[in-house]
């Protein structure tokens, strides 16, 4: 797959699972991808949540998407404080309004500029064969 195809796949399947680390223990939960384009993948959460604290401490994450294939994206999460982007996210996700409208400092936004690897059941690669990565 090309970079553009991977990004289109993520746009079509925005729900992923986000893996993080908490004190040398793996953690994972469902996460919505707000946007996926040339500039990276955008995620949001509340700063009071453990996932925010885990990423602030160790930004080396991976996300996994499933459709007819599996796409994994790994890299360093960047915490971004872009007020215009926060306002756009709250505007487009009405359930966030009661919590974050005019209290944007509590909303955490992350950007992941990572590399992707794909897998499908009929790929036929040998177990443990080196993965091929696509820079996003």
């Amino acid at each position: 797959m090309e970079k553009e195809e991977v990004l289109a796949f993520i746009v079509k399947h925005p729900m992923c699972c986000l893996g993080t680390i908490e004190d040398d223990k793996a953690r994972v939960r469902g996460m919505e991808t707000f946007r996926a384009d040339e500039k990276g993948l955008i995620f949001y959460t509340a700063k009071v949540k453990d996932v925010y604290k885990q990423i602030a401490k160790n930004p080396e994450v991976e996300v996994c998407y499933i459709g007819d294939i599996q796409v994994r994206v790994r890299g360093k999460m960047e915490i971004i404080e872009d007020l215009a982007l926060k306002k756009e996210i709250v505007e487009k996700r009405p359930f966030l309004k009661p919590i974050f409208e005019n209290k944007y400092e509590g909303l955490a936004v992350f950007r992941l500029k990572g590399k992707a690897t794909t897998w499908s059941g009929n790929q036929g690669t040998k177990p443990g064969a080196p993965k091929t990565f696509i820079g996003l």
Partner: protein
Amino acid sequence: MDKNEILSFITTNNIGYLATLDGKAARVRAMDTFRADENGLIFYTDKAKNVSKQMLNSPEIEVCYYSQGLQVRVRGKAVPDEDINLKKEIVAARPFYGEMTDEDYKSMAVFRLKGKATTWTMESGDSTSSFVEL
């Protein structure tokens, strides 16, 4: 949810997202849960795969299941299981394995997770203050 309801949810929605540590970096991929019962959750892979090596190096893992608005996360220590009868049962139930030699069985990796679970819904949020032992 009580323990039996959680195990039943995992049995119905058996594809989990398994998170591991690769050194200091997080990794996550989809994984078939072969079984979920009183004796733990059973996963299988190949010893040559990174996921197997990662679980041996850092056994503290978490698995996430999601269906119809309910998320279940199970965390705990992954323990390798070399029970040949269990391996044969998995192979018999998963036809994509095909014919297996003794070497193939040695290369097969099975892990058991006896962990604790936490649930999440949009309405109720996280239940991380009240884990359910599985």
